């Protein structure tokens, strides 16, 4: 599954970051690594980018980049 498939408030585990060139390293440096839990906080009012929560930090990522991040085990909100 892709990170963009997450709905607002849902959490999932990161599996792998795909082919993103230098951006991959930057995502890794910001804490987006395999095994981490990531949560979608909200979409920007114009629909893009999206705000995620990872390692206790809010991070904005564009959808075109988020779709290269693979996730699994989506947990919904109750």
């Amino acid at each position, binding site marked *: 599954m892709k990170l963009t498939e997450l709905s607002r408030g849902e959490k999932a585990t990161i599996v792998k970051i795909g082919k993103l060139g230098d951006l991959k390293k*930057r995502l890794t440096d910001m804490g987006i690594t*395999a095994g981490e839990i990531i949560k979608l906080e*909200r979409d920007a009012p114009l*629909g893009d980018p999206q*705000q995620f929560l990872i390692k206790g930090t809010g991070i*904005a990522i564009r959808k075109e980049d988020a779709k290269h991040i693979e996730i699994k085990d989506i947990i919904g909100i109750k």
Partner: protein
Amino acid sequence: MIKIAFAGNPNVGKSALINEIAGSSLKVGNWPGVTVEKKEAQFEYKGQQIKLVDLPGVYSLSPYTLEEKITRDYILEENPDVVINVVDSTNLDRNLYLTMLLKELGKPMIMALNFIDEFEKLNYKLDLKHFEKHIGMEAVQTSALKNRGLVELLEKALLVAEKHKNQVHSKYELRVDKFLETEMKKVEEFIKNSEEFTPVVKKYAIDFIVIKLLEGDKHFLGKLKAYGINNMETIDESIKKIEEKFDEDVETIFAESRYGAVKGILLHTLKTSLKSRLDFTDKVDKILLNRVLGLPIFLLLIAVLMGTVFNGAAPLQDWLDGFINGFIGKYAGFLVEGTPDWLSSFVLDGLIAGVGGVLVFVPLMLFLYFFLAILEESGYMSRVAFLMDKIMRTMGLNGKAFVPMVLGFGCTVPAIYATRTLEDEKSRRLTALMAPFMSCGARLPVYGLFTAAFFGKSAGMIVMSLYFLGIFVAMLVGLTFRKHKYFKTEDTALLIELPPYRIPSIKMITRSALTRTGSYLKKATTVIMGILIILWALTYFPNNGDTENSYMAKFGKTLAPIMKPTGFGDRWEAVAAIVPSIAAKEVVVGFMAQVLPLKDTEKETEERTTLSEDIVDQVKGLGFAIKDSFMGIINIKAIGGLFETPDAEAIEEEGQGVVRAVANLWAGDKEGPLKAYSFMVFILLVVPCIVTLAAIKQEFGNKFMWFVTGFLVIVPYVASTLIFQIGRLFI
């Protein structure tokens, strides 16, 4: 001298910490060759000279961003005596990743556990003793806001520097997977046995060399070339083995090892509570980033920002203008009485007016930097990028570029300085190229004069069309240049942290505004003064003050034929007005009044006042200005006034009969209004003013300033010509 470098992630309060420690000795400049801000301080502490350097906030030390390169190169090449790693104690599991990377560099280090007041409020507990042992350095609990631990931090840092005086590199071992470790050992053996590597091993820590070689770090490999090292078969072999085994690139594997090490350290030393540091931020974001409310609130905030900056500064600017040209000018006039005409004109119209031209911007700069610092330090600036990203992306920029653009409607100069909030140099350039097309406040009097003379009742519509034309041209420029290699940012992704909201300290914000304004004064003065004096000379000579026969007028007459296609080129007065307009756009009105035959008006007789009366007047005036400035800040309704064109009456006051005189430029010419419009378009798009150019030079260097100058001459020429030539088809 002891050199202390501060390194840490963005938003960890690093600058506030330095501000508190260094106090007024803090200086703001740029890192050589780039526009990344560099903060430094030098002072004496207990008989020792100490130099503090604030390295750019980074998440990593990879060679991908300018900030990271600067930080890494400084630590590796400039050999600071000790590195203070500032971390946000409320977010250790992410902050310590950089700590791991810094440790690989092998320099003496100490940690500042910052925001310790928030840490305690969250009821988090850290076993400091064991934490220090595992992380391999001393850690001091600090809070700039509560003034905690600052002296201790400085003293411990000095002790660490002293202790490591003679030691080149400290040993550091990243605990990694067994397989990875074997390969690392292999590489280490290879390096130690290779003669080529001897000088490299002397300069850099061995762990650092091994890790960077395996990661295939481009920046580091480039440096090795300088040592003549190219053959690295052994290393390539190891890389291949590792990547095969883990099915992942080496960089990522090392990154994961570092995160793993951090997790291990924190597992046994840190106890968090159920509270999160983001509780407050979440609540605020629910409103400020709300799907429906987010954008309206943002636009309202921008309107308030514009209002406070421009309306707050205007009364003080007016007062300064009056003080310099009226008060100082008057008494300087007495001093130069009896000297030759050219000398007194030089002192009054050249020198003093020049000083005035620079100083008048000081209140504006102060207000701008003050409010920009609030936006930045509070954490809202990142939200601006988040909110506006989708729109600005179409022009190859990220959302933050929106702020300079909007400021451009008030004044281009602060817009140029506001590009500093963009991280990427190329985006900054593109923004600076687009911002001058936002019609600034100083152009309004020109529009006022020409619309009053040619358009009567439809003046408002005409002015509005000019604003939109400016925006349109800016977008066109953005779309055209975003792919050019000089502007195209490699950093196409928006990947930013939305940091927790924090209430910025007034002291720090004030200091930041003061130092940045100080650097404007120091750097811009020479350029602006120089050009203003040249412009003065051009309008004064050769006939001693007879503007109509000055070099400027001659220049206008010579250039008029070239300007013919634009329509307004048939009147040399209009052409000549463009050159002094780069001193400041509003000068066009005065210039027109000087060169056009006006109806005779009685010269006002000045009242005689004494020096003491004048001083009282000036002080009173300052009082009123401060009051008006305050009122301007709190009166949100006054924002609309920024876009109000002065009416004909107000313009008449400037130079009596000037509106009629301008109307006479093309009286009876059925193309007259079109020519006037073409002139206004030219004024809209041409080089805004020399202060803007000085700002561009300061921020981007000489070459780019000349490029912008040329660009802002060609674009208006083409636009005015197109408008006139197409427009006349319909007349």
